[in-house]
């Protein structure tokens, strides 16, 4: 293979460095109007009165949409259910007078230009009948609802797993026990691109929508449901997405507002949210996790209990399986889990990079570190003593698991053997130095997907699928795989994605797109090859006349016999004799369910921190992340994925936290200066290692996906390093300087 596995530069790189790449708010549209959103200033209640008269009198204002004058919308919950909606009653933007959370949209001011819309939006006056609200998880902990365990594995992948053994008795009998409570605050995705939609009102009354999303077909179906439109009346495009990290899995409200306005006014409308308004979208749920571990004196685990309390809205039940990672990862005969859900007067929480694993594994891996200290064992040694070649919940072997090699190579690159096990024992100048480590794990998921390939006689291919490239590099890996499968130079392959009219794709999430779409390209390429062979056989005295369909490959623009490379027919000749100038195939690929194996990616994360104890400042000076994730399609973009995950892990460990004022039920730091995310000066040496992990059963190319695994374990490795540096165990994230100084 020429391109798969290489460090190919992004095929969309030129568009991105020149400013040519067009994001959702950027298509040039004739006669465009601009919408500015007015949001609620209370967390719960009803709109008593909206006075839009001042706004309407501003020259240039076209209309103000509210729940009182909006166009018709669906009046059933099913109309608002998107492909990945959790159980519950979905939020209906601008539907009625009910206020469910602070920052909820209550009006859209539409004007001829952006400044006028923004100014007029400031003139909309809203009176509310306020009702008491609750946004404080701690106040609701005791009334949280209990999630039932899944009846069987896979029945509800998000409910806690069924217990095994008798963890209570095993804990009572354990030689060494550790118990700890670990908390994670609300975190916001904060992609740098603002949520935006440009809705073009076409002459025939249909809508062409440029939207910021991770799933154009999800948005297309959702809009048709909400607005009660026929499927062919809405087309959704998202050729470029300026980051999303899970926030774009579900359609966001600005697309509804823009589409409503376009229908009401029969005009094209653009709506861009402000950074502050984006804190009224989904978020990583705040949570408290309690973990108890029991071990024999030799460090083998006897029992695990993992309880989680997570938050959601009052109207939908969003949760992910935080607790299951503990039961899965290490050899341990007894495990129990509990998950309780706290509804609050906030928007519904949602997926955020490595949902459940970034948080659940954080708690587990801090607890494992504490257990290692209690046992007097090296933290890495403890992981090796508990190593499992089987998924401990499903009790199945893995299709591949090379975590052992991650530990070995990661430790070697980091220099772990030079670690002094004693906390506070290592110093660099005036700073305390700490070394910590953690394990990471994620699922290797795959979804049904359709891919279309059109191959022309001049040896160019167009590969299309309605998936997204949210920065992960989907354009590039699709081009690489297609080029190799079709035996073409990379430059001869054009990739089309981010258009709801293209072949079916799931939302881009869960790290499943690379494996799914690459496998889809392999399958569709085979159909192309078969059709090409049929044409080649029509060439007079065809050298491939008696060759079976799988007896040929395509290389250098030719169909070549596998057994006798001298027998070949060029793509151009085959098409000419077949009387066509292009062939096109579309295949839906569904990887057969493999019930004999579990499928996961793993990582070993090693982190060094330096702590200025007088100021409480923590710096993460080195991270090594060794990853086992099957075949790596593109070493350049894959490393970027892991680097990004590590940066996210540093943010999670040290910076990120939405601070609520519970009196108002409002995020106080709803901006990107006071909600801290890592900046360049926060990031030092990060080394990414991919260990070999051949996997012949997972899919045709042995691909597992990388979007999530990079963050998993990072916050724990840093928290463990902070303990090693300072002797201080901070169990609630982020580890800010006040907690170090306490």
């Amino acid at each position, binding site marked *: 293979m020429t391109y798969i596995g290489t460090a190919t530069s992004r095929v969309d790189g*030129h568009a*991105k460095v020149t400013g040519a790449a067009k994001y959702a708010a950027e298509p040039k549209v004739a006669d465009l109007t601009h919408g500015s959103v007015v949001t609620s200033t209370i967390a719960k209640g009803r709109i008593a009165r909206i006075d839009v008269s001042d706004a309407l009198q501003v020259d240039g204002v076209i209309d103000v949409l509210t729940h009182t004058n909006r166009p018709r919308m669906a009046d059933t919950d099913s109309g608002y259910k998107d492909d990945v909606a959790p159980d519950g009653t979905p939020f209906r933007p601008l539907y009625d007078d009910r206020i469910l959370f602070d920052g909820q949209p209550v009006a859209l001011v539409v004007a001829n230009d952006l400044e006028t819309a923004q100014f007029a939006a400031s003139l909309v006056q809203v009176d509310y009948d306020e009702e008491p609200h609750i946004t404080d998880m701690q106040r609701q902990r005791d009334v949280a609802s209990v999630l039932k365990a899944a009846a069987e594995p896979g029945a509800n992948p998000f409910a806690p797993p069924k217990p095994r053994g008798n963890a209570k008795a095993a804990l009572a009998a354990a030689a060494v026990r550790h118990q700890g409570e670990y908390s994670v605050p609300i975190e916001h995705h904060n*992609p740098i691109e603002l949520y935006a939609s440009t809705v073009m009102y076409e002459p025939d009354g249909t809508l062409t929508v440029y939207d910021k999303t991770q799933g154009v077909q999800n948005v297309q179906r959702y809009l048709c449901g909400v607005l009660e439109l026929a499927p062919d009346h809405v087309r959704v495009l998202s050729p470029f997405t300026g980051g999303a990290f899970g926030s774009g899995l579900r359609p966001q409200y600005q697309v509804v507002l823009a589409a409503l306005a376009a229908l009401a006014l029969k005009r094209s409308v653009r709506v861009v949210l402000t950074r502050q308004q984006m804190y009224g979208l989904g978020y990583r749920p705040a949570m408290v996790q309690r973990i108890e571990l029991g071990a024999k004196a030799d460090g083998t685990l006897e029992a695990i209990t993992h309880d989680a309390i997570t938050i959601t809205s009052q109207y939908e039940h969003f949760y992910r399986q935080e607790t299951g990672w503990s039961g899965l990862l290490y050899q341990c005969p007894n495990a129990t889990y509990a998950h309780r859900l706290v509804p609050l007067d906030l928007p519904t929480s949602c997926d955020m990079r490595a949902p459940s694993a970034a948080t659940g594994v954080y708690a587990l891996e801090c607890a494992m570190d504490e257990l290692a200290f209690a046992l007097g064992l090296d933290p890495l040694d403890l992981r090796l003593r508990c190593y499992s070649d089987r998924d401990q919940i499903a009790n199945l072997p893995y299709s591949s698991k090379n975590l052992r090699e991650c530990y070995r190579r990661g430790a070697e690159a980091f220099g772990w053997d030079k670690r002094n096990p004693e906390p506070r024992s290592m110093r660099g100048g005036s700073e305390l130095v700490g070394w910590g480590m953690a394990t990471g794990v994620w699922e290797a998921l795959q979804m049904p997907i359709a891919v279309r390939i059109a191959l022309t006689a001049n040896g160019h291919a167009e590969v299309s699928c309605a998936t997204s490239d949210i920065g992960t590099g989907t354009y590039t890996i699709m081009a690489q795989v297609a080029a190799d499968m079709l035996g073409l130079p990379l430059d001869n392959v054009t990739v089309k994605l981010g258009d709801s009219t293209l072949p079916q794709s799931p939302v881009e999430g869960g790290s499943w797109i690379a494996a799914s779409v690459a496998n889809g390209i392999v399958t569709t390429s085979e159909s192309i090859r078969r059709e090409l062979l049929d044409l080649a056989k029509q060439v007079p005295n065809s050298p491939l006349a008696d060759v079976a369909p799988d007896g040929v490959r395509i290389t250098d623009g030719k169909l070549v016999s596998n057994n006798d490379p001298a027998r070949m027919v060029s793509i151009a000749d085959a098409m000419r004799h077949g009387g066509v100038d292009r062939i096109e195939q579309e295949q839906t690929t569904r990887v057969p369910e493999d019930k004999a194996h579990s499928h996961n990616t793993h990582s070993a994360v090693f982190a060094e921190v330096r702590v200025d104890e007088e100021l409480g400042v923590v710096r993460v000076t080195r991270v090594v992340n060794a990853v086992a994730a099957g075949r790596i399609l593109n070493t350049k973009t894959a490393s970027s994925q892991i680097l*990004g995950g590590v940066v996210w892990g540093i943010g999670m460990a040290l910076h990120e936290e939405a601070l609520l004022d519970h009196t108002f039920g409002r995020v106080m730091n709803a901006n990107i200066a006071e909600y801290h995310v890592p*900046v*360049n000066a926060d990031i030092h040496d990060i080394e990414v290692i991919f260990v070999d992990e051949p996997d012949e059963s997972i899919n045709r190319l042995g691909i597992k996906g990388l979007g999530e695994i990079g963050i998993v374990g990072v916050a724990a490795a840093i928290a463990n390093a902070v303990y090693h540096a300072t002797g201080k165990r901070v169990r609630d994230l982020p580890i800010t300087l006040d907690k170090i100084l306490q």
Partner: protein
Amino acid sequence: MDKPLREAQKGRNSPSLPSKVTITLHVNDVARTLTVAPWTTLLDALREDLDLTGTKKGCDHGQCGACTVLVDGRRVNSCLALAIMLDGAHVTTVEGLAKDGALHPVQQAFIDHDAFQCGYCTPGQIMSAVALISEGRAHTADEIRELMSGNICRCGAYPRIVAAIQQAMAEMGSKP
């Protein structure tokens, strides 16, 4: 073509709006005359009036750096600059960096080092890097990190951004 909005103000409580103002900006070496409201930012003038959407909006508060452009050679957050204050100024945006189809060394270095993922903060990072190099104040990786910290990359490409800037500095004859 000043168009007073005041005459349209029929509302009792609406504040009266000041007139729009006609200005000339030299954008990427082309003189562009446009009529903007006094509160129109340079960012919105570029994106909405001149269709130069390479300059990105990420916060509108000078917090993220995605809107960084060069004004008379200096890097500024264009979301914090009012267009009317820049009448006659020379503005360089990411669209004006490549010359005769050849990428600027910083642009090429960003591709070579995969110094971006989603690409949204990238124009701001690149403009900031171009200015950083001409400022000549960054001599070490730590200084690059510090002086590039006004540009947030949520995808976390920071190590790659530093490497790309180092490559471009070497090519452009600046240290290191």
